[in-house]
């Protein structure tokens, strides 16, 4: 199938609030082997000028990938979930994510095109606090391999 260019610019309603916890940051930092005390120790984080422990640079994916997947459940997008792979990922940090943040994710389709039988869809997820402070822009390019695709 071919992705409809009309999809570009489509936005989805904001997600429920995700409350970032110290234990989740510690769990993620441990899983990726990030040794920095600012992820694990609130005192060390404060000494470095942060209000609380901060998340490693790719932690935003815990919230953003699920938010990006709202496009897969949009019947007008019509991507075949079973064929979707993650093609590219980008994070733009406006400030580090930290424990205590109450984040809302808003997803927008930035690009949609079909190349060599593969559907390429770029979903931009804006993570902001409940009060509207921008925290991170997480952009995912999802690839749905076509029947004759080469990816």
């Amino acid at each position, binding site marked *: 199938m071919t992705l409809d260019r009309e999809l570009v610019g489509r936005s989805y309603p904001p997600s429920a609030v995700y409350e970032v916890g110290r234990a989740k940051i510690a769990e993620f930092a441990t899983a*990726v082997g990030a040794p920095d005390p600012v992820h694990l120790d609130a005192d060390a984080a404060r000494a470095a000028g942060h209000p609380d422990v901060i998340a*490693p*640079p*790719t932690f935003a994916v*815990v919230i953003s990938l699920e938010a990006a997947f709202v496009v897969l459940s949009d019947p007008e997008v019509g991507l075949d979930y079973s064929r979707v792979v993650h093609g*590219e990922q*980008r994070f733009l*940090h406006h400030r580090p994510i930290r424990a205590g943040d109450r984040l809302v994710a808003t997803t927008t389709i930035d690009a949609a095109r079909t190349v060599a039988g593969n559907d390429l869809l770029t979903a931009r997820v804006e993570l902001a606090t409940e009060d509207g402070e921008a925290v991170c822009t997480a952009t995912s390019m999802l690839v749905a391999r076509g029947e004759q695709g080469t990816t």
Partner: protein
Amino acid sequence: MSVEVGTELPEQVFRITRADLVRYAGASGDFNPIHWNERVATAVGLPGVIAHGMFTMALAGRAVTAWTGDPAAVVEYQVRFGRPVVVPDDDEGAELTVRGKVGALLDDGRARVDLTVTSEGEKVLSLARAVVRLP
């Protein structure tokens, strides 16, 4: 730290075992069975269980944060997932080598770091780059 275009980051070598993938699945919430179940991975045409692309991205990012000494200095980070990292069911797992060098000095005391990320001699990420605030 004296930084110029071409300055190289210390090379980092990581080992990825099946246990690491299970731990990352739990921490990230990505339970796709291709990252822990050989039967499912081979049924969809993969050579075996593969690492989460996002786990590979996180490890590569550690080469950058180890160099800056401050995870908050990473302002921007992006990768393209090229070839999967196949993780064998043994104690050694797969090896991931991360090299990096400064590709550009930007305004406001920032620098762009270009990463080369390989496993078994093959590039697994492409267009892997981070923008960091220099101390």
